[in-house]
């Protein structure tokens, strides 16, 4: 054991000095998801498949809006796989910190089209 101890004296420590040094997230990292809400058709498949009840659909069909509870999300990626129009995509944010509970619910709204007279 002694020889290994002395060899480690010369090497650089393996600890990363977080937050000054960070690790890059990998290619297929499981992190927070987001909606490209204009493509959503309101089929409710993501609501039914979510194991943690983290997705809430408001409205119907092409007017549907999404409320996403980050606190309940498992980051499993099932909703990404099951969406027929590929509306849901995975971002690379995994260092998630919120300061109040209301901030954990993200509301994806549609752009209101102005009715021309």
């Amino acid at each position, binding site marked *: 054991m002694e020889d290994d101890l002395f060899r480690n004296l010369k090497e650089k420590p393996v600890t990363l000095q977080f937050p000054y040094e960070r690790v890059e997230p990998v290619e297929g*990292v*499981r992190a927070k998801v987001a909606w490209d809400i204009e493509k959503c058709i309101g089929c409710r498949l993501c609501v039914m498949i979510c194991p943690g009840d983290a997705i809430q659909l408001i409205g119907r069909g092409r007017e549907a809006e999404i409320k996403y509870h980050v606190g309940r999300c498992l980051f499993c990626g099932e909703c990404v796989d099951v969406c027929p129009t590929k509306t849901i995509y995975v971002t690379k944010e995994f260092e998630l910190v919120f300061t109040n509970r209301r901030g954990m619910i993200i509301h994806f709204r549609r752009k209101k089209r102005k009715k021309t007279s």
Partner: protein
Amino acid sequence: MTFEIPFGPQHPALEEPINFMFEIEGERVVNVKPRLGYVHRGIEKIAESRNYQQLVYLSERICGICSFAHTLCYSQAVEELLGLEVPERAKFIRTILAEMERIQNHYLWLGLTAKEMGFETLFMYAWRDRETIIEMLDMISGKRVNYGVNTIGGVRRDITESMTERIEKSLDHLEARAEYYTKVCTKDPSILKRTVGVGILRPREARALCAVGPTARASGIARDVRADEPYAAYGEIPFKVVTYRGCDVASRMYVRIDEIKESIKIIRYALKNMPEGPVRVKASLKVPEGEAISRVEAPRGENLHFLKSNGSVKPERWKIRAPTLANLLSLCRMLIGVNLADIPVVIAGIDPCIACAERIALIDVKTRKREVWSGKDLWRYANEWYRKKYGL
């Protein structure tokens, strides 16, 4: 004159809460009484209100370290009920990930046992080497624990060519480190003095108390679900079941380090002979009626899931029997006659995962009293209930 010492639920030697009441005379243990139930989360009850696809993610979270073994066991049970045949490539990927989890678990165990013995340096080294295998798992699945790769009908991610190269390089590094740990654990005098002859479990007792996993294999009993009832791709991969005859903590250490080397060989073989094809078949959510039992060799021992379905999308009953629950009786037998200073070493020797082992705790809501029922109470309650029902 016996002296009662409580061990846990909060203790620096334990990662999970469990309570042992030891009766000590001088420095020797004469009696031990375990109490479980501090981590009861009601998983089997939640299971009755979720559908089969959602339960894959619940089964992952039974335990943080052997999570892949639990999902594998559960998925195999559901596939047996559905009569579904998983593609060959998915079976090989499942095997590779299961063996990677075994390597990761055994390195973690080595570090923890060294910490119980007071050997901090070995703890730091073992966990530094564990980072290598965790990075490989991160690369394949996107997460370091609770991978979410298994699903009913196959796996959700594939292993590509570039991944294979990096895995081979890390396997070489891990094999060299496993050789080094074998050398340290067989030659270092302080480790040998603390582990040889401690926590003896004779083969006759191990068989009678149904010990599983490396605990049984260190007493010379060659019991391994991968060899007895091959699942996934184990039927096509040649490997050796590692046994030692020392019956003490040192033998369990050698069994686990040798299992790391065997796992590395299995992964190499599987990566070389992996067939092409799809990784997933579509499975229906509605499962026909029936019962299924599936067994898997988790890193700690034999994992057993029992699933009963009634034709709808939600299961009727799901029972989990984790390996630590099976080893608990052997642990109580091992602890009698042991020195007080060796208690954490012996407890760490069976690799306890208390989160896997659950038991019912009854709470009387009106009086807010909490009681734990033993076998005798259950038997008495059953007799009274039947007597009242049939008016005897």
